[in-house]
């Protein structure tokens, strides 16, 4: 018993265990989680400010333009490359070193002739390898299609999830689930605004993925609350929620960790495209777990207090 006491004491500093007989729980998460909401809101606010100041770092998917990834036959520094590009009349090109002797060159949209001029110049001054590593040309204005499609996909997903959770749970669960979703999306967007990471179609794919995935944590917590309401007629709703969050905590952490394993590896060893993917998923998954533990249950409890007719 003495061995057991020590960790309990440590926990007391963070949160006092609530003793309710068989349904006691260790972490009083719901009562303390106004901090969760504050952290999230601060984050979103900072993201919003950054967004208003300098917007997103849109890629060519959104702005239109030309992107070539070129492998050079010999070593070349970014300054040398910049001066060669300047000589060809494209001094404003965005250059990015990806691998040894390999650069991404981003310019305005190019015609075939213009592209050939650039490549010929690069070939004669430095020497390039053909075929190119990649070559993309996006017409300006194409993003309108992407944005419209994304908004439709988001709207349909949200509507579908809303209806499903409504049927399986209750309207308050459904609305809070959607709120958590929107929270997760805002967190991802804030991250992109704050870190100024390139915002491209991959980002859109990530956002849509998180839309589908991040809710599973919330559903698991809600499922437990739904179950507990049915069997526990004694305790208050806040304790039922707290107990449920505590009971699902190990699972939430476990799943988050295992899902993050491959994503972290991708973040370490992956190339630019893969890193883009991994970065967004990483943020989204953590945000999804965070909101399901620290935000959803608290709002659910607040809702129950505000509209007592839902109180069982």
């Amino acid at each position, binding site marked *: 018993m003495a061995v057991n006491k020590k960790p309990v004491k440590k926990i007391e500093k963070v949160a006092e265990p609530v003793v309710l*007989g068989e349904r006691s729980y260790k972490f009083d998460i719901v009562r303390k989680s106004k901090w969760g909401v504050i952290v999230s809101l601060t984050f979103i606010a900072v993201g919003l400010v950054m967004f208003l100041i300098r917007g997103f770092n849109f890629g060519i998917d959104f702005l239109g333009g030309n992107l070539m*990834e070129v492998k050079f036959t010999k070593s070349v520094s970014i300054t040398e490359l910049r001066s060669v590009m300047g000589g060809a009349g494209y001094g404003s090109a965005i250059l990015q070193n990806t691998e040894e002797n390999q650069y991404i060159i981003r310019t305005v949209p190019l015609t*075939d002739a213009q*592209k050939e001029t650039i490549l010929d110049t690069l070939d004669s001054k430095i020497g390039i390898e053909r*075929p*190119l*590593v*990649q*070559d*993309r*040309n996006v*017409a300006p204005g*194409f993003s309108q*299609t*992407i944005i419209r*499609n*994304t908004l*439709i*996909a988001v709207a*349909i*997903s949200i509507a*579908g*999830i809303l209806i*499903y*959770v409504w049927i399986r749970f209750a309207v308050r669960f459904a609305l809070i689930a959607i709120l958590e979703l929107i929270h997760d999306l805002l967190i991802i967007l804030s991250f992109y605004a704050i870190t100024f990471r390139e915002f491209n*179609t*991959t980002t*859109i*794919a990530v956002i*849509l*993925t998180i839309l*589908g*995935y991040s*809710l*599973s*944590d919330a*559903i*698991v917590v809600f*499922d*437990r609350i739904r*179950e507990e309401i049915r069997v526990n007629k004694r305790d208050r709703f806040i304790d039922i929620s707290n107990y449920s969050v505590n009971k699902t905590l190990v*699972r939430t952490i*476990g*799943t988050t*960790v*295992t*899902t*993050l*394993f*491959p*994503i972290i*590896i*991708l973040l370490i060893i*992956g*190339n630019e*495209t*893969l890193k883009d*993917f*991994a970065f967004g*998923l990483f943020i989204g998954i953590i945000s999804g777990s965070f909101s399901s533990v620290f935000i959803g249950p608290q709002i659910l409890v607040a809702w129950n207090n505000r509209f007592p007719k839902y109180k069982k």
Partner: protein
Amino acid sequence: MRSKVGNIVVIALFIVILGVCFYYIFIDGIQNSIKLGLDLRGGTQIILKPVETGTEEVTDEAIDKAQLIILNRIDKLGISEPLVTRDFNRNIIVQLPGVDDPERAIDIIGKTAQLEFRIVESVDDSGNPVLGPTLMTGDKLSKAQAGYSSNGQIIVSMIFTEEGSRQFEKVTSENVGKQLAIVLDGEVRSAPRIKQAISGDAVIEGIETLEEAKDIALVLQTGALPVNLEIQESQTIGPTLGQDSLRQSMLAGIIGFALVAIFMVAMYRGLGLISIIGLICYVTIFWGILAGLKTPVTLPGIAGVVLTIGIAVDANILIYSRIKEEVLKGKSKYAAFNEGFRNALKAIIDSNITTLITAAALYRFGTGPIRGFAVTLAIGVVISMFTAIILVRAILFLVVNSRAITPGFIGVKLPKINQETKAVKEK
């Protein structure tokens, strides 16, 4: 609940399914088992948007026809395994694996190839011809060929169909002495003076290279596109970038899998081992389905696979943590397993269905690689439910009564005894 025989049948069924999957994985050699998308194997993707000309609406039939014509042109270019599809916004998406000269392909595919014969009415002040109405179009050609004229010029010679021949004869006979402009996509290519009525053929002059003449002949032969197409996006991925991505994702998948396995065994001991069997089956079935369906796997698709490993483990974690809980409550092994499964089932189904809803929306409204992602996500979610709920359950219930299944096997340590004594005291 279920009988021992039932569980053995389920496991046998899975072994059969795995066998089928192995068949598909190995039938064409393990290297070629999965069809890779353009972004992984290298290739060119072009997105073409139909443009409304004037007040005319672009009809679905026109786009269908355009797709067919594009496919024809690609065929004539000798590119194998092209894919010409249409997305939700009626954009035409052309995918060409491993093309040597993407610029040329892009050029040819997007060309409207509207051939018109018009009379030069007069010449304006700056010397440009003023053209009369279109008298004839290129749809009545039977053949177009690149070559040299007798004076060594590069030309495209066109032979009309029977009907076209008659029409051309009529046009030329009515306009003897005038200049006949041959207009390709709005550009006057040549304007020879009509000396006499001509019936059989016509030539296009003023072409710089034989290559260009060949391209013009090709697009004329496949016919004009019924709509103007604007290139929205063209993307060419070299073979090395795709290989890199593939290698890195595979490595991340393998290392991730190993870490997940270690985590599961550390957390759930013997149960963790069973979940690893489930996971291996999951990966095999996933692989088999991708190989069998020949669905092209894109880079986002691979990311989807990596993500679904997490989803697949989730179902196991949900079940095991419930089992642990029930064991801690002091229930018997069998009751704990049973309750654990029953309690976890709803959460598994509900959370997976919300993921499926999004995958469906993604598939419907996404383009290209995002669609590939939606497909792998959906397949992954369904297989993971299938393996966790049916296979892992069958294995667990088959072994539940064996003496090897101790609290230690489940990953529950001494507290179990404490709980039990507590429970007794409470009573």
